[in-house]
């Protein structure tokens, strides 16, 4: 903040603001009267919150199944259905849940970005 005892500060304060013409307010308001306010329109995602929650739940279920299958590889015959046993032998690295988690996260990011891009494209169309 400027020093109130400062000579230059005194000069600025004493001289005051430069004065525009008296009718400047009227001229500005005349232009404002014909100017619309620009309102930012929010981007609405195609998939709503419920759909994303369902996808998340499904993804979590897939993760659980993958981990369970991975554990099952060490003790064959744990599963009662052939489906899981077949899956456990055909899927690569089913015991490495970190790879699955990384893949799942990357898929969700890609899907989210795609959803947003489609929403923006739909809005501007």
């Amino acid at each position, binding site marked *: 903040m400027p020093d109130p005892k400062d000579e230059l500060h005194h000069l600025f304060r*004493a001289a005051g603001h430069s*004065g*525009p013409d008296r009718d*400047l307010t009227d001229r500005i308001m005349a232009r404002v009267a014909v100017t619309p*306010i620009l309102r930012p329109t929010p981007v609405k995602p195609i998939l709503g919150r419920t759909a994303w929650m369902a996808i998340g739940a499904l993804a979590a279920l897939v993760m659980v199944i993958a981990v369970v299958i991975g554990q099952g590889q060490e003790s064959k015959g744990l599963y009662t259905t052939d489906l899981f046993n077949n899956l456990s032998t055909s899927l690569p690295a089913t015991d490495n849940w970190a790879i699955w988690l990384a893949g799942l996260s990357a898929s969700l990011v890609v899907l989210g970005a795609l959803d947003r891009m489609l929403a923006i494209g739909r809005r501007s169309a």
Partner: protein
Amino acid sequence: MDHSTTIQHILAGDSRAYAELVRHYQRMVYTVCYRVLRNTEDAEEATQDSFVKAYQHLAGFGGSAKFSTWLYSIAYRTAISHGRKRRSDETSVDDLPNHPASAPDTTGQRHELRKLLDNALARLDPEDASILSFFHLEELSVEEIVTITGLGASNVKVRLHRARKKLLDVIQATYGPEAQRLILEHA
């Protein structure tokens, strides 16, 4: 000063409420534009454009900064942009009017002081003249000037220091003891 209620009214459709903000800030906005453009007509045009732009984008004013800081930032950038457009037929310092259009409350001494200050500031870089006005006339902080101008804090401090020194030198060299007398009489 809090203008949130006025802004809410404007956003709700009462565009006439904007006149309150225009009346409150037009002199400082005009001063900023005049410091950059150094021409009354251009300054008035830039002032109008600044207020119209601010009105258009009022819905985007988040309230994280003061309304005045936000508005001065628009005015500063608008004036700089006007200045760039008209750089080709730039007015020389000698062609400058003695002072901008006088305000209704202008007294004789105030008029003389303003004339002295305007002529001295016209010999400074337009951006430096604006920074000095923000600091001394509006008493804005360095942080607020940084927000308005987009310059770095250290840059603003250096510019302030140099511009002050140069302005004092110009006043002393041009007006000598007369300037001292005017300032002291009005202090």
